[in-house]
């Protein structure tokens, strides 16, 4: 499977995601933001970091960059797109995903291992997980507090577009297990066509036992499935 990782000035999880993809046998290429053409890819990843310093608003400037037009074209033609952390923020800025990511409820940057519940395991990104499997995964963000309007929220629920929700160790989804104030504990969502996933947690940080755990591996192997 061929993957492309888009590198913006200020991206800082680009190397991490490339390592994870290569570890899982993806044929990966890095694509600099000034490029006007994307290499042939089955998967495009928009990595975490602080694209353009997150000045103005997280993801706002990257959402208007040259290469993003190509990403939008590919997305519309059905290519799989994965946005992690800042990548998720960028995807909402382009309109490929609806809703927005607000400042964390406690108004502080949060980095820690939390738990997420796999709400939908019938997607390209999660088919190797069991339904309601609990994953221990790292978050690192200032703006991860997902919000959307009630119409879109209804759509997310009706179409089963919510892939991950924050939960506790046992899988309980409630206010205490919500690290950043996200609407209904949402941690990752799909677009209506289900080819685009945006998520705040970092699966690429969870692919090795010695560093953390391997809970992120199945996200990548789902894509290979």
């Amino acid at each position: 499977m061929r993957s492309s990782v888009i590198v913006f000035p200020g991206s800082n999880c680009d190397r991490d995601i490339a390592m994870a993809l290569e570890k899982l046998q993806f044929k990966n290429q890095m694509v600099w933001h000034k490029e006007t053409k994307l290499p042939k890819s089955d998967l495009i990843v928009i990595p975490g970091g602080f694209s353009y310093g997150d000045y103005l608003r997280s993801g706002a400037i990257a959402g208007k960059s040259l290469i993003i037009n190509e990403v939008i074209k590919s997305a519309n033609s059905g290519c799989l797109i994965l946005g992690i952390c800042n990548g998720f923020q960028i995807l909402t800025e382009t309109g490929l995903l609806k809703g927005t990511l607000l400042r964390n409820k406690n108004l502080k940057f949060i980095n820690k291992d939390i738990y997420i519940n796999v709400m939908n395991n019938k997607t390209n990104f999660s088919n190797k997980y069991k339904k309601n499997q609990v994953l221990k995964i790292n978050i690192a963000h200032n703006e991860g507090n997902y919000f959307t309007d009630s119409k879109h929220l209804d759509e997310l629920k009706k179409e089963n577009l919510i892939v991950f929700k924050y939960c506790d160790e046992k899988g309980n989804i409630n206010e205490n297990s919500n690290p950043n104030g996200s609407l209904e504990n949402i941690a990752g969502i799909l677009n209506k066509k289900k080819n685009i996933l945006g998520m705040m947690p970092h699966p690429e940080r969870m692919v090795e036992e010695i560093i953390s755990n391997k809970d992120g591996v199945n996200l990548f192997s789902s894509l290979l499935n």
Partner: protein
Amino acid sequence: MKITDKIIEKHGLKIEEFENIKKLLKREPNLLELGIFSAMWNEHCSYKSSKIHLKKLPIKGKQVIQGPGENAGVIDVGDDDAIIFKIESHNHPSYIEPYQGAATGVGGILRDVFTMGARPIALLNSIHFGSPKHSKTKSLLNGVVSGIGGYGNCIGIPTVAGETKFNETYNENILVNAMAVGHAKKDKIFYSKAKGLNKSVVYVGSKTGRDGIHGASMASAEFDENSDEKKPTVQVGDPFTEKLLMEACLELMKDNSIISIQDMGAAGLTSSSVEMASKGNLGIEIELDKVPCREENMTPYEMMLSESQERMLIILEDGKEQEAKKIFDKWDLDFVVIGKTTKTNNLTLKYNNKIEGEIPIDALSSKAPIYNRKWIKKKPSKKQINLKDLKKIKIEDALIKILSSPNHSNKSWITNQYDQSVMCDTVQKSGSDAAIIRIHNKDKAIAVSVDSSANYCKSHPITGGKQIVSENWRNLVTVGAKPLAITNCLNFGNPENEEIMGEFAECLEGIKEACEYLDYPVVSGNVSFYNGTNNKNIHPTPVIGGVGLIKKLNKPLDHKFKNENNILLLIGKTFGHLEQSCFLKENFSIDEGMPPEINLLNEKNNGETLLKLIDKNLILSSHDISSGGLITALSEMSISSGCGAKIQKPKKLMNLLKYFFGEDQARYVVEINANNLSKVENILKDNDIYYDNIGYTQEEYLEIEGELKISTKDLFKINNEWYNSY
């Protein structure tokens, strides 16, 4: 413009120093030249009060590739790998503007490391605040922590370890020390020494603004009630630009086009150009019209003294300009040839084709003043604390007081604001004795820790100096790393005061003794004097940042109890030294007497033997015993694991408070499997190590026979309350 006494004083120079300048120039300097002298001759850049003492520190060793004098120190960690690291203070700016002060502290130390060709892999910090009750402490804490996080998180380098302490001595002068650690290939290390005539001097990075003018001079003066007026001299950080600058420099370094490179830190363009020329025994000519400026009508004076961040000076090989420029264009950064190396041995500054200033380089470097300031020895305190004179206290109450105190409370409120995991090589995060970072793509790792003990240093500087090196060494040993070398940040008060200068000289004496004995050389560092306000000086606070090597990375070793029914051994001898202990400070507000004695022979023997046990996989968890004594160490092992322990009372007749809270040095608690007991005991005996079998791990409760029984959940709660309610 006539240089008056008032102008001289405003530049932080003494009248005698001005006379000396006139002698060196054989004429009176103009204002631009005076500004440059003031920038180079201040304490921060010239080390004029500290130099003769710093010379005594051990800086050599098999493991050392580059000692002090470069942007950072370099050590050999085997194969073709080198680790480059340094610690630096940003105390004064952080007190005036905590967010930017702390952020640019991180930015500055990162540049020191990537300038030498290393990709930074870890950040650490040591931050000291005044009493939590002081009106400014809360906002300073908030600002500093978000500044450190804001910079490190954005640039994408994990902040993996640190220490946060509170003491009224820092009420009016906080300490913010930042350490950066990078990894490079041994044959790809870049230095600041210029070579060759007529080579292009290139300016890269951010544009120059009016921020930070005379920042280094500010860091060389005491504060007074007007300190807030100094806000404009605090630099503003832009971690995004630094990220671009770092990537661009590392990209350029893959090629062989750089002769020398130096970041523009304190005293900006002035110190970087002088440093490069002086090391290369050359002159340097700069055309100031070419310097990229952020603001209009900047004068040569302002350009030379600006401390705008995220800038570098590079001397390039002939004909490499075009290729190099391409890289900086790609990253949207300025790249301008602003001058050349010359044979004049002068710093020559031109503006509109006119020479605006010309100073012999050696007048700014080797001929800068060096002072052998007067100092006096500290008299050892004879005060001994007799427990009989104090109110009776139960072990449980004293322990709760310690675990719930600001200095011992769990710091996840802070560390959760730092990205500790980015780069995917953080094997062990903060909260253990040392953090562990894997060398990328290899199965080896380094351990890093940063430590200080200002109370010990205050009461007896020589012992304090020895203690802090030893404790740092021990912290690396407990995670199974062989300690290799240190960097130090020496935070002291006013060196013109004989007592303060004495604290400095004697702390350094202690550091020297310990470093020599433990083969733990100093490879880089920084001195920060004038920490104080209105003649009130801070406690002497040398901060030690250590790096150790884990040759073969298996499971990382931490201080969490692993399982029930394992044996607990206390390595090292317990005497029950309570003077200067956290027990007396937290429970009785007593901080008198001598700190615990340091026996370097035991220190080394105990640590090296523990490393042998770790190498043989005989240790399940280990923790060094420091502030708060044995029972505090055991509590920390319980809290982090949720597993408890049952501890016997000592067989010898000793006061229980002394036994459990004494801060005797060179001690560790280790957890071992009962089946391995005889094996471990044999190794300890073979190496003449004193040890006690103190009990075993058990479910849920930390217990001392008949004296204490408290659940690990309660301990956790007690330990986690303070920050969240502050």
